[in-house]
């Protein structure tokens, strides 16, 4: 752990902790470059592997076992026989390679920050909700509210997903290899959604910001979701991202369509009733 060099920090104009109103002033050294994981997280070795047979375990026991293995420094964990249990693989705030050999139920891998998860099956509702960082790759299909309120990281479903994909998305990248259901990107605020197949009705309804790329047909755009212009940087980004997960679009990345927010709903409360009608 790097030791803080107070003299250098003071030279740089950073100061000792001082509270004034709602501002909290903290100082740290920009030389603390050897710390690449959260302070107090478990230092794990990805060459150390372990397998959990979850056949007769409750979700709580599975999660506790994963945590206990991380504390022992195991960095590559496989969970066999997850039996579509709900709420497993959640709350992992650590670097880790985690594999589920079969399907998960509802709320799998939620609230994670850092791990790389591979699910060799399907998932139920709200997979990876509130995900902060890391990667989650699902080989099969996924249920509704896939990646609800996701804030960061890559969430990938090689198959198709249900309705309200990425509802309230605040960051990160959701990639769907197949189709997505109605109201995908509902109230999206930031981040990117890449749909390789078709999208259901009301795509991007009431989105504030963010970007949706669609490779197939869109049944209908939602309120305030408008076509955007693809740039060369978008094409390069999409090619690199999809190649990373071995996913292809039916007509190629260049022919994908981009959708963004029309931003007519920004400052909505300040509009007159007649103006609100025009927006909607």
């Amino acid at each position, binding site marked *: 752990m790097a030791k803080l060099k107070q003299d250098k920090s003071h030279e740089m104009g950073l100061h000792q902790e001082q509270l004034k109103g709602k501002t909290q002033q903290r100082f740290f050294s920009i030389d603390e470059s050897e710390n690449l994981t959260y*302070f107090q997280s478990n230092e794990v070795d990805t060459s150390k592997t372990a397998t959990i047979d979850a056949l007769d375990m409750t979700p709580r026991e599975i999660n506790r076992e994963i945590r206990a293995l991380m504390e022992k420094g195991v960095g590559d964990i496989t969970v066999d026989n997850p039996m579509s249990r709900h709420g497993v693989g959640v709350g992992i705030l650590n670097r880790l390679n985690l594999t589920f050999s079969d399907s998960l139920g509802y709320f799998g891998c939620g609230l994670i920050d850092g791990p790389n998860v591979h699910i060799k099956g399907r998932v139920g509702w709200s997979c990876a909700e509130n995900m902060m960082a890391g990667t989650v790759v699902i080989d099969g299909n996924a249920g509704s509210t896939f990646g609800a309120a996701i804030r960061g990281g890559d969430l990938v479903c090689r198959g198709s997903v249900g309705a309200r994909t990425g509802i309230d998305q605040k960051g990160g990248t959701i990639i769907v290899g197949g189709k997505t259901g109605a109201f995908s990107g509902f109230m999206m605020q930031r981040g990117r959604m890449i749909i390789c197949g078709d999208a259901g009705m009301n795509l991007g309804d009431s989105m504030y910001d963010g970007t949706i790329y669609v490779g197939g047909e869109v049944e209908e755009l939602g309120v305030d979701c408008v076509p955007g212009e693809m740039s060369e940087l978008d094409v390069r980004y999409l090619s690199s991202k999809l190649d990373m997960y071995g996913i292809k679009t039916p007509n190629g990345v260049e022919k994908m369509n981009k959708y963004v927010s029309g931003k007519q709903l920004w400052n909505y409360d300040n509009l007159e009733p007649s103006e609100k009608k025009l927006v909607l």
Partner: protein
Amino acid sequence: MSKDEQAFVVGDKGLDTDREEEIGQHIGYRYDVNLVPDLKYITPFLQKYIDKMGWKDLNWLEDVHMGYEEDKAAVFDRNVNGWVTIPDSIKLPDNQQERDMIARELLIKFQMSENHPMVDLNNAYRKF
């Protein structure tokens, strides 16, 4: 604030609304939140970080951009819901992509520091 800095804070279009004119700054983001990163500008430190995490690109850092707090370059730390000001000693380049990479590097260094506010919160409130 230098003229170069003002171009980033005010933007190409200037201040649009009466309210913005009144307060002298833009309302909302002062950078393109949808700008996808250009990996050719990645710094050695960030490369080391993503290698350690086992990722092939910037992952969650794709959503991190350099913003401005009280006319000073800053980066938003979602873990503390506040801005981290970029030290004056760091010379900032004149394009957003390179600025974003500096912001990402600084944010990682702050978040991984033992002086990060989350460390105190963790000690006080962690359940397990």
